[in-house]
């Protein structure tokens, strides 16, 4: 037996689902209402989660459990409070310190990680002997991979006039980009359709019980 609350919840979900879909007809009050409810719930969800998942375990519990041992945590706590000073224009400048620390850390780490993963490892992954592959398909593929990567990077090289001979690799680079955009296109279609299927399954199954 399903309880009243479960049934009520499913009807509520269905109502919200349909209100959002009503945007397809045109922008209307029901859609606007649902959308603002979504914004409100989402903000509250973040807030509550930050409190229970970060503030309590990583800061307050540690300070309450062993204050003298965790004295150093008062520094990030103070920096955090300085961050909140951003709310008021007069105290906004105080928040520049925690922001600078956050941005500085992020900049350092992203610089290293992008350099390693997105540049160096991509370079070494392209340094392959195309003829070492087992099948003809893979040999052709590997050659395409090398040429495509080189021409693609060259397409984004802005310091050379792309005329005559120098226009050729750039042109090839665009072709590869276009093929890749085609693939992305296909995958995006796939993704959007999947999400729709998920919602229809809810409406037809959980709500209307039409799916066995």
């Amino acid at each position, binding site marked *: 037996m399903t309880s009243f609350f479960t049934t009520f919840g499913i009807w509520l979900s269905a109502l919200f689902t349909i209100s959002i879909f009503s945007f*397809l*007809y045109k922008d209307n009050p029901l859609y606007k209402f649902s959308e603002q409810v979504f914004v409100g719930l989402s903000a509250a*969800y*973040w807030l509550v*989660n*930050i409190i229970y*998942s*970060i503030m309590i*375990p*990583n800061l307050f*519990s*540690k300070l309450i459990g062993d204050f003298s041992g965790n004295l150093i945590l008062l520094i990030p706590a103070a920096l955090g409070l300085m961050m909140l000073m951003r709310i008021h224009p007069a105290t906004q400048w105080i928040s520049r310190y925690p922001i600078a620390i956050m941005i500085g*850390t*992020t900049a350092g*780490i*992203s610089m290293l*990680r*992008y350099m*390693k*993963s*997105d540049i160096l*490892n*991509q370079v*070494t*992954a392209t340094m*392959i002997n195309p003829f070492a592959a087992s099948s003809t398909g893979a040999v052709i593929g590997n050659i395409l991979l090398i040429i495509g990567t080189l021409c693609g990077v060259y397409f984004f090289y802005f310091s050379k006039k792309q005329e005559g001979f120098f226009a050729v690799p750039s042109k090839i680079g665009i072709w590869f980009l276009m093929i*890749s955009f085609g*693939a*992305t296109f296909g*995958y*995006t*279609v*796939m*993704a959007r*359709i*999947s*999400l*729709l*299927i*998920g*919602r*229809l*399954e809810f409406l*037809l*199954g959980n709500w209307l019980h*039409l*799916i066995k």
Partner: protein
Amino acid sequence: MKISSSTERKIIYSVLFIAVALPLLFPIGWKTDVSGYTRMAYDLIEESPDESVVLISFDYDPSTMTEIQPMAEAQIEHAFKRNQRVIATALWPMGVQMAEQAFSSVIKNYPDKQYGIDYVNLGYKVGGMVTIQAMGRNLSEVYPADQGGTPYAELPMLKGINRLKDLAWISSLSSGTPGLKEWVMVAGDSYGVPVTGGCTAISAPGFFPYVNEQRQLYGLLGGLKAASEYEGLIDRIGPATMKMDAQSIAHLLILIFIAIGNVKAYVSRRRVAQ
């Protein structure tokens, strides 16, 4: 006959709605091929030793759960099948709820799996890449306790697991930033832990360069199709497989729309030329 563009739109919307609804109501049961990327992800889990501790990071929210939730369930089930113990974490706050739902759905078939011994849900942490880097140094510093407040040291399965390097594999189920990219960069490339993962179909093409002989990423599950392939590999009739018929029909419909649109454009262009 002249149809206004807004009517035209509404017709298209209705046709799509029906095309997706019908196969859901009357399933066909078509089979699909398994792609190499899915098999690679499967092999990583299959070949990891028994009893090893693994980590699945839930870096998505309900907006993409149709695509990603089946992957989560399939990977948890696969890990349970192989007797591996699963840590769930989340870089997105909503991921924690997703993890909870995934566990409770898989646990129905594995009633003897116990919380704390076979799986734990450590929950959400803010900070993305920086936080993963901190986990690589010391997990218990980042996660002093699990969701319910049980201290890290008191969870039996986490004994001997001090940092990411102690894990057999990490899977990030990701629908944006922070997510799989950050895991590849930090856990994979910086700490050398095998990373696999799943993502929405939209971001899949951008992740394929990581699947290379440098082993930055061990295979990839891209979208609902890959989730259904994975379900097939572990003999699970799951939520993804049941949706594939609708997916196929809808794809066909989109292609038909493109074709009609192009024919129409061609005809009108010729008319203008004349």
